[in-house]
């Protein structure tokens, strides 16, 4: 009976750990290009019902994340695309293997790394594709991304 109580207590404590996870913005200032120009093209040149007004573009980003503060500790890294102008967007990316490929919509984040942080920097080359509603494209827009660390 006492061992069962201990087990339940342990389970409750384990379950509580993620709630204490701390989220921190990662220094990605080594990323190149840091303010990258991206020319968007119509996804469908010749629209007919159903109308597709998406514009799409792809660029290469050399990501360099300074994860020294979490060295030799486990962590989960997310790529975040905050909700912003010009409205609803989708991003997808491939990698060279250090980070995970994935996709996300604006206002959300996607896991790109999970595990022990073994080096002060995590670097990878992303082929980043961005999809935007073309009818909202009235000017230049600066679309911000960021990387977040969830400490385990």
């Amino acid at each position, binding site marked *: 009976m006492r061992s069962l109580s201990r087990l339940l207590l342990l389970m409750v404590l384990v379950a509580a750990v993620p709630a204490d996870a*701390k*989220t*921190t*913005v*990662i*220094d*990605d*200032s*080594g*990323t190149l*290009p*840091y*303010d*990258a*120009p*991206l*020319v*968007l*093209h*119509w996804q*469908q*040149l*010749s*629209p*007919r*019902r159903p*109308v597709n*007004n998406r*514009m799409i*573009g792809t*660029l290469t*980003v050399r*990501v360099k994340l300074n994860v020294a503060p979490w060295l030799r500790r486990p962590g989960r890294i997310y790529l975040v695309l*905050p909700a912003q102008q*010009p409205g609803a967007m989708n991003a997808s990316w491939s990698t060279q293997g250090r980070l995970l490929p994935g996709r996300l919509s604006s206002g959300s984040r996607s896991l790109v790394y999970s595990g022990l942080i073994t080096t002060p920097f995590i670097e990878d080359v992303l082929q*980043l594709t*961005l999809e*935007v509603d*073309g*009818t*909202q*494209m*009235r000017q*230049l*827009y*600066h*679309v*911000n*991304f*960021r*990387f*977040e660390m969830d400490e385990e």
Partner: protein
Amino acid sequence: MHNASRLARLVLCTALLAAVSHTVCAFTVTIAPAAPKTVYLQVGVGGFTGNYNAGGTPGNNATVNKDSVTVAAAAVGNGTPQAMTTDSTVGASSYDGFAFCNVPAQLYIGGFYRTTTAGGGSVNVTATVPAALVDAGGDTLSFARISWTTGGNGPTGSTPTQPFPAGTFTAGAVQTVGAIAQNQWAESCWTFSYSNTTFPAAGTYTGRVLYTLTAP
């Protein structure tokens, strides 16, 4: 200079990393449309390479197609409209290859207007019509003698919904012959006819109509 900029960025990021979630340490993608406005118009043979749904792309084609009719001597001026036929071989929609028009009875007209502007606007297609068709001897025949009906095969072919409706040429004028809603494909099939209500001198009468799609 490049390194200095990077250092400044790093210092700024480091200084602000203490504050939890913030967008300062964030790489940015500056997006801009390459071709915010694109128009395509095809009357008869067009420049579409492949079909849209097979990854086709629009291009230019300098072909000028002809619609014509030969009126039998006994029928000239009898008031019975004479159906014209086209030398265009295009009956298939450039959108998906669907056999939308029946050649040579019908002439395909289609296109689209792409714009980043939101809303429900449209652009017009106009016809620049000479005053008359002319034969080798200088005899004339008013373009107003030529009319067309509209339609198409399949569910989008009903006459009342055609983006390029039926009409009659206005001699010596620029007239609107249809509209393309923004960010939509539009297509119709025209069947031309000669009214055959006059007695022109015998001859071969020709004239050229120029179709123009104008976007703001």
